[in-house]
């Protein structure tokens, strides 16, 4: 279990200037869904993008967070996705 605000803080620190959207899916502070838009993802594979996120969360992934549904985008990729809605 971890405070959603703490998760947001960790992500915002790791992706400065990026867009971070976090949802506590179950209201139990251990199943989250995150959408992150950041320049840091540019030129990286999806695996590498998600590894950056896991790295930012560090020990929180080792127990406190049971599940994290993750969507990562570069600003360009997000513009395409959002534009197509």
């Amino acid at each position, binding site marked *: 279990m971890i405070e959603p605000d703490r998760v947001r803080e960790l992500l915002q620190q790791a992706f400065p200037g990026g867009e971070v959207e976090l949802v506590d899916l179950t209201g139990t502070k251990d199943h989250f869904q995150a959408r992150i838009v950041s320049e840091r993802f540019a030129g990286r594979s*999806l*695996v590498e993008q*998600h*590894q950056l996120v896991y*790295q930012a969360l560090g020990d929180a*992934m*080792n127990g406190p967070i049971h*599940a*994290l*549904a993750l969507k990562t985008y570069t600003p360009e990729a997000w513009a395409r996705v959002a534009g197509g809605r």
Partner: protein
Amino acid sequence: MDQALRDRIKSTIEGHRVVLFMKGNRNFPACGFSAQVVGILKKLGVDFADVNILADAELRQGLKEYSNWPTYPQLYVDGKLVGGCDIVTSLSETGELEAMLRAGAASNG
């Protein structure tokens, strides 16, 4: 992580072209995310090896360090981590997963 475990992980990943490390097994997935990836692979008719990490505590911890990936399921194709449930789902929706699996099969004859 000791060398024996590292070697065991490596040989498991390289032992089959498509390997899914999951909670439970293909017939009885013990987690919704694992079940989802099994469903995608079955739908594509892919031959894959499933490894139940719940039955192997050493492997469960070791693979996280080996791959720098903290969650399960983990899908490997041609010895390389493709991703977890989110990435596999997304790649299957765009057709990239099928292309990846078919491309390798063709080059292997």
